[in-house]
């Protein structure tokens, strides 16, 4: 490749970086600006103020909301891994009557976006007294549509395992549950990783459901809390909002940079199967 071509390509790549880098840079720097000069076009604040970062915690129970999002995402991820790997394994490796019909029933979940069923689900959880609790945010993703996709991905993985491994384990006297736990699951680590990343991000980003189900501030999850930083006249407190957004985005970004290969391959994999 000629030098000219090389310079041209790098130039093009750098220009294309702007919409990806500029927002993050602007979010972090603006979060240190006082709200009065928030719209001043400075690439770094003229005076750095920690006040907005403090206000995030005084205006809302932000630590509590952070905890809500974190614990819900962790439970949903662990629960989905258990549910999806067990069902995926059974559909792929065990023969039992009615298997294909039951698999079709589970697969219908792939056809139906959760937005379609939000009205009946709201009514269901309302009659169970679970509105304004975290139960809908845990149960629906863990057992509903995203978990169906996870089941499908696990099944596609388990189908590729060589049958000889299980035969050998059988001859050694292992039962099904032991074969699943000691042989199939350890081999499924890449698929489990992909499902875990996808499920965690799905739960972490969930927005329509919290808006519909949750009404008390102490029970908000992060996406919902982020939109609530306003002053007494409903004017947006941009600097506080951007501080909170930074706190939401930066930890995930750090984990992403450390484990970028797993993230990119895992999400591309789940994306394709979806």
């Amino acid at each position, binding site marked *: 490749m000629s030098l000219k071509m*090389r310079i041209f*390509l790098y130039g093009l*790549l750098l220009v*294309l*970086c702007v*919409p*990806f880098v*500029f*927002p*993050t840079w*602007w*979010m972090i720097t603006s979060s240190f600006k006082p709200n009065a000069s928030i*719209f001043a*076009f400075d690439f770094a604040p003229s005076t750095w103020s920690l006040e907005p970062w403090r206000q995030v915690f005084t205006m809302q129970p932000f630590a509590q909301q952070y905890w809500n999002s974190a614990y819900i995402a962790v439970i949903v991820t662990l629960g989905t891994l258990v*549910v*999806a790997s*067990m*069902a995926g394994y*059974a*559909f792929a490796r*065990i*023969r*039992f009557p009615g298997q294909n019909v*039951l698999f079709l*029933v589970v697969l*219908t979940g792939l*056809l*139906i976006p959760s*937005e*379609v*069923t*939000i*009205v*009946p*689900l709201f*009514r269901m959880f309302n009659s169970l007294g679970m509105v304004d609790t975290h139960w809908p945010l845990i149960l629906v993703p863990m*057992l*509903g*549509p995203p*978990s*169906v996709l996870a089941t499908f991905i696990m099944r596609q993985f388990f189908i590729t395992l060589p049958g000889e491994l299980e035969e050998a384990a059988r001859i050694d006297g292992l*039962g*099904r*549950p032991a074969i*699943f736990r000691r042989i199939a699951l350890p081999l499924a680590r890449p698929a489990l990783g992909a499902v875990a990343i996808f499920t965690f991000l799905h739960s972490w*980003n969930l*927005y329509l459901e919290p808006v519909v189900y949750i009404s008390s501030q102490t029970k908000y999850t*992060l996406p919902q809390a*982020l939109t609530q930083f306003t002053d007494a006249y409903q004017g947006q407190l941009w600097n506080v909002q951007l501080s909170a*957004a930074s706190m*939401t*985005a930066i930890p*995930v*970004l750090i984990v*992403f940079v450390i484990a970028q290969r797993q*993230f*990119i391959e895992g999400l*591309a994999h789940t*994306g*394709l199967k979806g």
Partner: protein
Amino acid sequence: MTLLQDRAATARSAPGRPSYWTMRRRDHLTGYLFITPALVGAVAFVFLPLVLVVWYSLHEWNVLADTFDFVGSENYRKLAEDPNVPGVLRATALFSIGLVVLNLGLALVLAVLLNQKLRGTTFFRVLFFSPVVVSLLAWTIVWGFLLQDNGGVNGLLSLFGIDGPNWLRSGGTAMVSVVVVQVFKNVGLNMVLFLAALQGVPQELYEAARTDGAGRWTVFRRITLPLISPTILLTSIITVVGSLQVFAQISVLTQGGPGTSTTVLVYYLYQQAFQFHAFGYGSTLSVLLFLIVLALTVLQWQMRKRWVFHES
């Protein structure tokens, strides 16, 4: 001693008599137990609600007024006559088409650039992918801030002497803004899928075309594009179905406005059901959304069949 007890005793002591729990039966039981949670979940949180939403769509149901009356096809007539619906469908189609065209176009450009033999492509790949993992709400809020009349985007434009519009508040630019914000959020995912497809194109084909004297553009159009077309079709369907579920971006950036210019179907459904408490009509809109997604999925299957034919 009765005969029955006697028999039971012999059965227990009989050597080698197969127990009821043969390996096959035990396997069946394990299979059923393993799928139970997923099956219960699919029935309770997908299948049943889907049936219910169709049932509810036949009712006049206002939560505030506490009415729940069977009205038959009344809600569907309302849907056909609702003056907002054409605008909503138009906004939904515009958003989906705009998103697919811009997302796939940019993803293809990025993938081709990163497929060159350049140093540092890993760095750029990570960078372009990073918005995919950034919290959707954080990303949307930052762009909402940038797109304010006196915000960062217009600040950047003014460096080049361009006086930018009030992106989110004027009819001509609100939809474009919402689409573009969504494109930058997720383009990394399609970029990675395209990159994998590009790397699967055999090098010999390129070399053969070069020896035949084909130019760069011809090679791309006649060899690369046809060979990666399955990936293009697949990503476009995933992107379209995903675009029908967009809610947070609309809710944060434009609240469906100005007017109803960015009111997509999911947002309208949310407004009707959870802001105006019309659960019956909201259910009707849900059924409409489901039918659209279903039609697109069937289309996907049909197209997949066709490629398999092509490939063989």
